[in-house]
């Protein structure tokens, strides 16, 4: 498996931050989002409230005792969902492979990204900047070669920070961590591991995969892999793909006759990305941006959806002929995309035709 680039984006104190954003009187004050009632638990706590020891999932009564001056706000999930969708929309500008875990966190696979940013770190900071500027909220991000490391990393510089775990860092980063940081290791598992003399990930590495499997079955194998920083689980986008595209901005604006190599590589990139979804795109789109920043698109929908990278490339190249600009016109950007995706992914061929 080639090296993946995974980003875990976690909104900071999400519900509480949305409340503070929307009600200026709450800013700077400890805010606790929770229903009223004796059995209610804390949905979210602002960082001001956290200083008093208030945490999510803690009984609201206890939070009140810890922080009597906190403002209690009932949750408004309709509003949080709307904000969450706006965050998702920002992420989708960078990659189609967004897997939301909840309203306030998501995994992104940015191995192939749509904006052409060179590193996952740049993608993550670009997303966080957009969230700050467009939504007036802060997010933290973790960047790593897999989901579980990305999630640990996003916690590392919280709030409003990001942290990268490079493949080469894994062996210095992981061993000192308490085993409780590994996904699936809760109180009970932690206790069991403690009995085996395992407190840190480093301790866990001392045990063989076989020993762990004998003790914990399949999860033992997973534990062993996690201790080594191995996690092959994929980012599974939940939203049906609407379009997939790749574009590139030239170092210097070029003539239309010089577009072919880039169209070929963008088509290949787009095709690779389509392999990750079960849906099928029917319309091929060629996008150009002129040196004077005009956007042009040309599209074609063949009778049957493009079935290979070659077909996609061929159609994309043929769309150049439909650009009737001045031959001296220069272009700063070219993109190739597939759109018009549909769930009718399974097309039954016919015998008589």
């Amino acid at each position: 498996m080639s090296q993946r680039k995974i980003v875990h984006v976690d909104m900071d104190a999400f519900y509480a931050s949305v409340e503070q954003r929307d009600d200026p009187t709450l800013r700077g004050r400890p805010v606790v989002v929770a229903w009223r009632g004796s059995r209610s638990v804390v949905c979210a706590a602002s960082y001001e409230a956290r200083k008093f020891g208030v945490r999510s999932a803690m009984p609201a009564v206890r939070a009140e005792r810890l922080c009597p001056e906190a403002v209690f706000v009932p949750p408004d999930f309709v509003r949080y969902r709307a904000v969450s969708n706006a965050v998702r929309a920002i992420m989708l500008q960078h990659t189609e492979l967004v897997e939301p875990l909840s309203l306030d966190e998501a995994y992104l696979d940015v191995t192939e990204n749509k904006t052409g940013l060179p590193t996952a770190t740049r993608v993550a900071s670009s997303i966080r900047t957009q969230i700050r500027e467009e939504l007036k909220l802060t997010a933290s991000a973790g960047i790593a070669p897999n989901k579980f490391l990305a999630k640990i990393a996003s916690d590392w510089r919280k709030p409003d920070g990001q942290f990268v775990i490079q493949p080469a860092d894994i062996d210095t980063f992981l061993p000192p961590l308490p085993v409780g940081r590994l996904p699936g290791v809760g109180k009970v598992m932690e206790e069991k591991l403690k009995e085996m003399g395992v407190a840190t990930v480093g301790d866990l590495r001392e045990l063989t995969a076989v020993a762990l499997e004998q003790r914990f079955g399949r999860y033992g194998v997973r534990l062993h892999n996690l201790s080594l920083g191995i996690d092959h689980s994929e980012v599974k986008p939940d939203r049906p793909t609407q379009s997939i595209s790749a574009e590139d901005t030239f170092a210097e604006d070029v003539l239309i006759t010089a577009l072919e190599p880039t169209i070929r590589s963008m088509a290949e990139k787009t095709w690779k990305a389509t392999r990750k979804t079960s849906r099928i795109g029917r319309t091929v789109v060629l996008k150009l941006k002129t040196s004077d920043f005009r956007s042009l698109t040309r599209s074609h929908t063949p009778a049957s959806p493009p079935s290979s990278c070659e077909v996609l490339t061929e159609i994309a190249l043929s769309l150049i002929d439909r650009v009737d600009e001045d031959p001296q016109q220069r272009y700063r950007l070219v993109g190739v995309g597939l759109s018009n995706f549909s769930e009718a992914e399974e097309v039954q061929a016919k015998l008589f035709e």
Partner: protein
Amino acid sequence: MKLQVGRNELLSALQAVIGVVERRQTLPVLSNFLLETKDDELIVTGTDLEIELESRARVQNIAPGRITVPARKLFDICRGLPEGAEIQLESTADKATLKSGRSRYSLACLKADEYPAMGQVADGRSLTLKHGQLKAIFERTQFAMAQQDVRYYLNGMLLEITANRVRTVATDGHRLAMSEVTLETGFKEATQIIVPRKAIIELLRVLEAGDEEVTLKIAAGQLQADLDVVRLTTKLIDGRFPDYERVIPESGDKRLQANRELVKRALGRTAILSNEKFRGVRLQLENSKLVLQTHNPEHEEAEEDLEVNYDGGALEIGFNVNYLLDALGALTSEEFVMELKNADSSGLVYALDDPSSKYVVMPMRL
């Protein structure tokens, strides 16, 4: 009319015919059976104007006559009577009375003269074969018949008779099933007829597996099948069946051979997590390995790894899993062969060492 008959004897005669009687009728008399006596037999006839079924029961104490009675009611009453009961049936002008032990039923009759019987098929060519032979070639192809397709000629089965074989072909346009039996037919010219779907289903209900003889008589737009105690007469579908031989692929260079039951079971399991609407299954072949994969919109996934006989190079192809299951279910051999060419061409399935049944399945883009 008057007669006495054993409940079991009568029930099996009614059972053979009831399938053709539609529950909803355009003509009232079509929901009735025609009952008539002939020598020491009762002849039961049911029809839907396209297909007529006739069965016989041995009866006693006959006063000859000809009546029609409500089919489903008579059938249900008869079925509800205890096994081995004796039944007396007697009719007046507009009533039929059924008595058995302490039970009495009076049924309304319609005039027998109004019954639209098709009768004997006059001078046609005929062909005699064994029950088991006809049953086999029907069973191995019937599932591929179309249902209520606008291409009406696909809503049936092609019966092709040549000098030395009888062949059945059925297709719904996505897959095709073909099966044949070798025998001297006495037909000099190749003859093709399209038998309606319902007639095939009805015939399958009454065909036995054994060596008893069936006589098929073909005449102007009709087919009559004589099965000793049951006779079926059907109108034929007037249309041109597609040139099926054209779509049976030439030997594909990629040949898979595997245990039929093993693959069938694996397909059956993976089918559980296929898309309910499209039923796609992905087959990945490479170096004696077959991987089956399905997934559905709920993001559930199935994968099966199988050892098979294959050295045709890497190939990935999608199929409707039901079509493969139908084909493998219709075969009886231990091993089967599947020939493939590429991801866009049809697959050909048949039994190892027995090419008498063939299945062509078009792929599916997954």
